[in-house]
């Protein structure tokens, strides 16, 4: 039992609930809905649903979960939602495609230039994206960064933003329906997912094994709570991996007919309307 901690970070009931992180989430959902309504060709409702599910999960993570008393399990649940599950919903919402459809030509040209930039190809490659996502988490758990984020609300929010951004990048590089110039082949993407998921699982067991001393720099610690958080991380990571793998292989399954194995001439037209990239 930790009891009331003087180091409880901002955003806790003691200093009044802080709901301001919900504002960007509401803006994301609202902006997308406006754009979808303006799409002249009619926007696929399943994409809208995926985006809204992603936004709802973000809202749960930064709203109700952030109001809970300071607890490693709550932090872990936030990390799982922000960094792994919610970004997949956002990626499946294909926001860049929607933007390209409703924006005027200058914006479209700018987006095109951005997508063709060398830097974008580098960080949107699944391997750097996996390093940013799982590696960032390792950095938080294995260094005093965790303890520092407990004390400084700005760092705390910046970390959450990093989780979402890195998770989005990783999900997009693996399975995003949005345009991704020079996306590597299936083998590289499956390998990156394997590496990230294995790293996540090993990190979870390592945290479990060393809950007495990790993350470093905490003044009061409850090893039992960190062990529970590590188990949540392990099984939550499995769920996220399962969802990502499904999205990745579903994208492969729905690949355009001309890219299927030679001899696929006999392939019946897929009955599944999801195969059409809106």
């Amino acid at each position, binding site marked *: 039992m930790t009891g009331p901690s003087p180091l409880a970070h901002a955003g806790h009931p003691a200093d009044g609930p802080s709901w301001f992180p919900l504002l960007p989430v509401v803006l994301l959902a609202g902006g997308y809905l406006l754009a979808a309504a303006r799409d002249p060709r009619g926007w696929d409702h399943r994409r809208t649903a995926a985006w809204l599910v992603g936004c709802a999960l973000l809202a749960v993570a930064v709203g109700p979960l952030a109001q809970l008393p300071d607890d490693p399990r709550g932090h872990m649940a936030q990390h799982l939602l922000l960094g792994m599950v919610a970004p997949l919903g956002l990626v499946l919402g294909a926001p860049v495609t929607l933007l390209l459809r409703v924006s005027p030509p200058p914006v479209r040209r700018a987006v095109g230039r951005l997508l063709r930039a060398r830097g974008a190809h580098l960080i949107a490659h699944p391997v750097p994206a996996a390093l940013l996502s799982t590696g960032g988490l390792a950095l938080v758990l294995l260094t005093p960064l965790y303890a520092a984020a407990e004390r400084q609300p700005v760092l705390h929010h910046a970390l959450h933003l990093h989780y979402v951004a890195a998770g989005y990048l990783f999900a997009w590089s693996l399975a995003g329906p949005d345009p991704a110039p020079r996306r590597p082949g299936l083998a590289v993407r*499956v390998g990156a*997912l*394997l590496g990230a*998921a*294995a*790293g*996540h*699982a*090993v990190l979870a*067991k*390592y945290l*479990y*094994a060393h809950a007495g001393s990790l993350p470093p720099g905490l003044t009061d610690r409850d090893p039992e709570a960190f062990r529970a958080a590590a*188990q949540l991380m*392990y099984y939550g990571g*499995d769920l996220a*991996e*399962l969802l990502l*793998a*499904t999205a*990745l*292989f*579903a994208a*492969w*399954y729905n690949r355009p007919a001309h890219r*299927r*194995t030679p*001899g*696929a*001439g*006999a*392939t*019946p037209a*897929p009955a599944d309307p999801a195969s059409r990239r809106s």
Partner: protein
Amino acid sequence: MVTDFPLSNARTADTRSSTLAGVLIGIAVMAAVDEIVFHQLLAWHHFYDRSTPSVALLSDGLLHAAELIILVGGFFWFADLRRRRALSTRLAWGGFLLGAGGFQLFDGLVDHKVLRVHQIRYGVHLVPYDVVWNVAGAVLLLAGAAVVWWARSRDPRDGSR
């Protein structure tokens, strides 16, 4: 245009892919049974038993991550073969048994004995458990080999690829 008559299916069946897709699903299903029955329901295995060396922890993490990917990938490959009418169901079943038995044996010999990631059960005399575990794996493996051999010999045209 290749015709869609049922007779032509056997001729276009992709022998190798059908077997391998079955093997993948077999591995993943056996891994899931291990995870769900022995870890979760019986709680015979431990989540982490503190005796695990760090190299084994790494291999365990990779294996665990691979299982889920294999499960999903195996089923999508299976669905793709079916859609292309290139699936041989018998070979897929044979592959399934091969994969399930192979994983069981691998888990019993490499994970439990060589790497010592964990044991089947704790606080009991292990030999009977190990024998039952590995013999069951060997029986599944042999049954799979028999089904694959039988399926290939039934239709020699399949054997060419």
